[in-house]
């Protein structure tokens, strides 16, 4: 063993260790930020290790350096700019986009190696080895393509660029996807047999499969899908590791793949959905049309901001239920002003965070943290649910499905069984909402019909601003 090999070995080992510690640290609030930096450091370390190895052995041609620099600068620049500019509300689709590009990268590596086989330095041609090579190339292309197109579709759906086409809700989609899957399997074996031209067939059908599988999935399930696609991109990286013979890639890819799978499972549990029903059940709204879930509202009470302010002033305990609408309206700072006023009047204010409020677990925590809401005022669902009967006022801000009592009462509802916030137990519930449109699941919300629920129609930010004005007039929070 010569020196460059030993150095690379040590660096790789260190990088794997740091990456593992990074993933571990990311699962705890206290260590998360440092862990993220640690992982970033480990990644740069691994690049240094690889480059120094090639410098010490075969050397790196000037031409290679040029292309390395071009690719690095363009990729890093776009990544950094997007990461800095993107608003917190569109985090889920941003993660999906990044993830898709990771899959694309694995796909391209495998394609490159397949079209222009790189010299491995070994003279003896080994049939077994070339077979393994073909298999890993095929897997890398297959998983990479699914990750790419699936993530892009997920992003487009979250951005609202793409709606769920009707046919994807019928049984037809299973047939279509099975056709794609079988076609990719044929291309897969054809490629392994040595027929290189079928590589393009594999690229095309696995891309289509990625689209076909993601397209029918409803918006509420999207976070789970992104998490799963994230796991896939890890698998794609591991497969690329087999292609270029890199242990580090295999370990890191396998770690991300497995950790992503666990995270997906955890998220499913939070939504009371099984992975199978997310992947093959189609979107919730499609099932609901057949059930009693859909229907007309019969008993809507609407009220003015002024009434809302009066009720709030008289309250002792207020619980805020934030949802995606709050994120869209960017009203978290205005909300914070309202709650500050209430607190100054001695009113207890708590925020009830449903595990899947917003479009992504943890979405609301991030948003409220941005508005400087004290961390200890954020209560998780299980902690806050027993408090609702003793609560005077609940403000529902742009949340819908997570406060739907149907999930508890109506066994025919597609939401049935999903854990929800029991807001209807409180004395008064105000729902601030732009209109009577259904939530992301497309299901009618029985909460709106209850006698203790009043609707305040309007954009969350505008209503909250008006609320500040009304509270001021009432002398709330003036000291």
């Amino acid at each position, binding site marked *: 063993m010569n020196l460059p090999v030993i150095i690379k070995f040590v660096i790789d080992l260190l990088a794997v260790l740091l990456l593992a510690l990074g993933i571990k640290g*990311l699962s705890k609030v206290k260590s998360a930020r440092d862990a993220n930096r640690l992982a970033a450091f480990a*990644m740069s370390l691994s690049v240094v290790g690889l480059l120094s190895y090639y410098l010490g052995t075969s050397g790196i041609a000037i031409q290679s350096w040029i292309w390395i620099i071009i690719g690095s600068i363009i*990729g890093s620049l776009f990544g950094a700019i997007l990461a800095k500019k993107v608003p917190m509300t569109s985090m889920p689709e941003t993660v999906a986009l990044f*993830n898709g590009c990771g899959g694309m990268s694995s796909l391209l590596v495998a394609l490159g190696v397949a079209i222009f086989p790189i*010299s491995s330095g070994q003279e003896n041609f080994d049939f077994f080895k070339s077979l393994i090579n073909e298999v890993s190339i095929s897997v890398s292309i297959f998983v990479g393509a699914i990750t790419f197109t699936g993530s892009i579709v997920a992003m487009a759906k979250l951005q609202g660029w793409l709606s769920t086409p009707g046919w994807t809700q019928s049984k037809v989609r299973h047939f279509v996807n099975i056709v794609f899957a079988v076609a990719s399997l044929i291309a897969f074996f054809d490629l392994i047999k040595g027929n290189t031209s079928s590589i393009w067939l594999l690229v095309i059908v696995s891309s289509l499969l990625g689209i076909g599988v993601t397209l029918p999935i409803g918006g509420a399930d999207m976070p789970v899908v*992104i998490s799963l696609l994230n796991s896939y991109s890890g698998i794609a990286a591991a497969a690329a590791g087999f292609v270029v013979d890199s242990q580090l890639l295999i370990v890191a890819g396998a770690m991300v793949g497995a950790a992503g799978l666990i995270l997906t499972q955890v998220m499913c549990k939070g939504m009371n959905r099984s992975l199978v029903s997310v992947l093959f059940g189609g979107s919730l709204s499609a099932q609901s049309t057949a059930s009693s879930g859909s229907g007309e509202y019969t008993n809507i009470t609407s009220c003015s901001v002024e009434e809302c302010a009066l009720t709030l002033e008289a309250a002792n305990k207020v619980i805020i239920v934030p949802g995606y609408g709050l994120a869209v309206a960017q009203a978290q700072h205005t909300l914070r002003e309202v709650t500050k006023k209430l607190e100054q009047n001695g009113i207890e204010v708590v925020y009830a965070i449903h595990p899947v409020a917003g479009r992504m677990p943890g979405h609301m925590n991030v948003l409220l943290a941005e508005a400087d809401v004290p961390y200890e005022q954020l209560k998780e669902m299980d902690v806050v649910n027993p408090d609702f009967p003793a609560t005077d006022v609940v403000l529902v801000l742009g949340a819908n499905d997570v406060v739907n009592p149907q999930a508890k009462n109506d066994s025919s509802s597609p939401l049935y069984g999903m854990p929800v916030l029991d807001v209807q137990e409180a004395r008064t519930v105000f729902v601030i909402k732009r209109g009577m449109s259904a939530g992301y699941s497309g299901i009618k919300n029985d909460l709106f019909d209850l006698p203790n629920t009043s609707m305040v129609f309007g954009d969350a930010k505008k209503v909250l601003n008006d609320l500040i004005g009304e509270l001021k007039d009432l002398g709330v929070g003036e000291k």
Partner: protein
Amino acid sequence: MSFISLLWVLLLGSLLGLELIGKVPPTLHTPLMSGANAISGITMLAALTLIVKAEGNVPLLIIGSVSLGFALFNVVGGFFVTDRMLAMFSRKPSNKK
């Protein structure tokens, strides 16, 4: 590396990944996903290898470079975005009142 030992690496790596994440508070789901996502951009190493071994083959150099760009977009963007999210948690109770 022989294929068998690479398979061992795959197996042990997967087991490690399964063990690493036990309980995750819901707050951290998004950052964790985004952080793990950045790590999956490790394919940049494969792209680098491709470029170094291209030996003047221009189409291969281009494929490698584009692949490297995609991977780094994933890595750099992913870590930055994760840091942005986590930065919001870190300045929590200190500036209360």
